[in-house]
């Protein structure tokens, strides 16, 4: 809402600030798009800002071509991300409900410890995770990595779900119980439907984190066929003797952006609302 009446010069300044910020935000991505959609022969020095011709060859090349990484890495990332999202949603709902509804003496302290854990660098739990998984014979398994993702996203998830449940009036549950509904039915018919928005946010955040994860799968997924795109795209940087394959790398990055930007677009309004509660943490 416009509280303050701005002079023309003030509006102008404001417009400039926003314009510069927009340029800063979008130009890097637009450049990636530009390299991805122009033929490789145009991605040489000296480079023209506007490409003279466009092609989809790089995108088809990275997905289906001989030197591409294929669809498999993206499928892997999706599988890991969705699985982690589901587990995170379940764990967060259970934990959040317990902490919201029950006045546990240690509940507050528990929440704090859990949240503090998520502040720590996720890269530093990789080697111990590697050791734990190897010692129990689970190294290289999909569930090992998925649970690792879920554990990283659950602290924030519990915190968000606790907040969500606290906003659901307990009278609703009490009324249902008085009417004779079992605890289970109450959950299913009354509480969960109201909690869905929060659960969606938690699941989406967990999916995004899983989809974007790099350092965990770098060490925990040795088999090339099971690696997500974040690790697979590294190949374009390390290829012997060919320099960095920018057209394919850019195309591969673009493909990776599609699912996460879609998920983000769908849920951004909810994210903005929830995010205002104190900020989400990325590790």
């Amino acid at each position: 809402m416009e509280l303050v009446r701005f002079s023309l010069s003030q509006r102008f300044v404001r417009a400039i600030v926003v314009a510069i910020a927009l340029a800063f935000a979008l130009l890097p991505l637009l450049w990636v798009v530009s390299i991805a959609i122009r033929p490789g022969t145009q991605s040489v020095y000296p480079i023209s800002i506007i490409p003279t011709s466009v092609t989809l060859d790089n995108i088809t090349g990275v997905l289906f071509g001989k030197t591409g990484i294929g669809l498999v890495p993206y499928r892997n990332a999706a599988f890991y991300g969705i699985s982690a999202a589901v587990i995170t949603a379940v764990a967060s709902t259970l934990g959040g409900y317990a902490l919201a509804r029950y006045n546990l003496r240690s509940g507050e302290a528990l929440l704090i410890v859990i949240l503090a854990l998520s502040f720590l660098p996720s890269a530093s739990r990789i080697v111990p995770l590697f050791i734990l998984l190897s010692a129990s014979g689970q190294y290289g398994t999909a569930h090992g990595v998925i649970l690792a993702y879920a554990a990283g996203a659950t602290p924030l998830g519990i915190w968000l779900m606790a907040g969500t449940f606290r906003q659901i009036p307990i009278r609703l549950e009490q009324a249902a119980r008085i009417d004779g509904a079992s605890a289970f039915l109450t959950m299913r018919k009354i509480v969960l439907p109201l909690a869905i928005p929060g659960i969606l946010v938690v699941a989406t955040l967990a999916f995004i984190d899983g989809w974007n994860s790099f350092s965990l799968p770098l060490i925990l997924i040795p088999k090339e066929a099971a690696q997500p795109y974040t690790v697979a795209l590294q190949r374009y940087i390390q290829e012997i003797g060919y320099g960095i394959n920018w057209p394919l790398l850019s195309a591969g990055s673009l493909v990776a952006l599609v699912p996460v930007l879609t998920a983000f677009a769908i849920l951004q309004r909810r994210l903005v609302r929830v995010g205002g509660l104190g900020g989400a943490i990325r590790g």
Partner: protein
Amino acid sequence: MNRRLLALLSVMVIVGSACTPAASQAPAATGSGASQPAATTAATPTKLTVWARNYTVEDGKKQPWAPEPKAKLEAAHPGLTVELSGATSGDQFNRIELSQAGAVEDKPDIFQLDNIWLGQFVDEGITANLDSYYANWADKGDIVPAYADSTKVKGSQQAVWFYSDIRMMIWSKDVFKKAGLDPEKGPTTWAELFADAKAIKEKVPGVNPVEFPASSEESTVDRWYSYLYMTGSNILSADNTKAVFNDAGGQQALQLYVDLVSQGLAPKAVLSETADDIYPHVFSGKTGIMLATVGDGLGSLPDGFDVSKFQSTIGAALPPLCPGCQPATTAGGWMLAINSASTNKDLAWEYISSVTNGANMVPFEVERTRIPVRTTGLAQADAFKADPYFAAEAEAAKVAHFPPFIAKYTSMIEILWTGMQKAINGDLSTKDALDQAATKVDTLLAP
């Protein structure tokens, strides 16, 4: 915390940790294992896992593994599949190391290793003792004598030589032409090197006259050794207990690098470059001279190059000599080892034996300009003539030196490249940088 919860958690942890499959064993603390090759397992093995270097399993190029040796093995053992996977050098090292901790399904039966890793891997118990296989091996006498003993660690055979390579200097003929230099003649002395580089700097702007790897990884030291050896110096003393690379010869060799950078003939950015970053620059004409590369570069052609285009683009020769120095180059190469945890050792040996056969290796070695380690392979000189610089390489092989085959080699080189970087970056004088590195290496090697 609630006592009940504590109990619940403890139970779960105990139950969880009890589920340790018998298959994943802790790596033995002892060195070269005395494990005998396992008797053929009762069940027919279905898979033989081979971890190789990526360019040995590249589609469309000659491979030593396939198609014949692979088909032969699979035909002799119905139901068996040979699974080949390739990796870059760094990834290969890492995955071999990591394989020790993984479950049995993630361990290779055969793995290809750089000869400089052998000491460390034997120390860690990853390799299987191959003495009994060598004892009955018909091809044993075919191994070139210079290589025969270097697969032995602590008295027993731990690997099989696969193929070797040497280092040559390469230059871009295109850049030479533009600089007014004779494209067929590379510099033969250090003085000529500087003169050529200066000519390139003046006449061909935008091109780096000289490049060499100086980043924090192995190719930095590997591509430098030729210049160390030619001065008469060495890396370690004859008994491999003390560093000698800081003697006058070593300082002279490193000073070459320092001078090239300080005179603007090599960019300081070399400190971030690996050998793999640099040699495409020579092909594309971004750099004039690369001081040392594996073979003559023919073995890893970038897209768009074939043999004929190669010869008109690249010149190759032995590294140029300092005054009063002796021709020298560095030898490297790859070996094959059987994983000590493998349950298919006999099968693995059968495959290795057929893959490393002299005649089988030649097509791969020709295409990738690698040096045969078998007399039968070397005898096929005609096949190698496809490489325009084969004669030069054969001569170079005669003056090739190997790095020391010790377990601590891989830790040692980090100290060495750090010292080199300090000198190149100007943080320390050449003498101080090398002395500092030598002291640290001596400490590292002390028993």
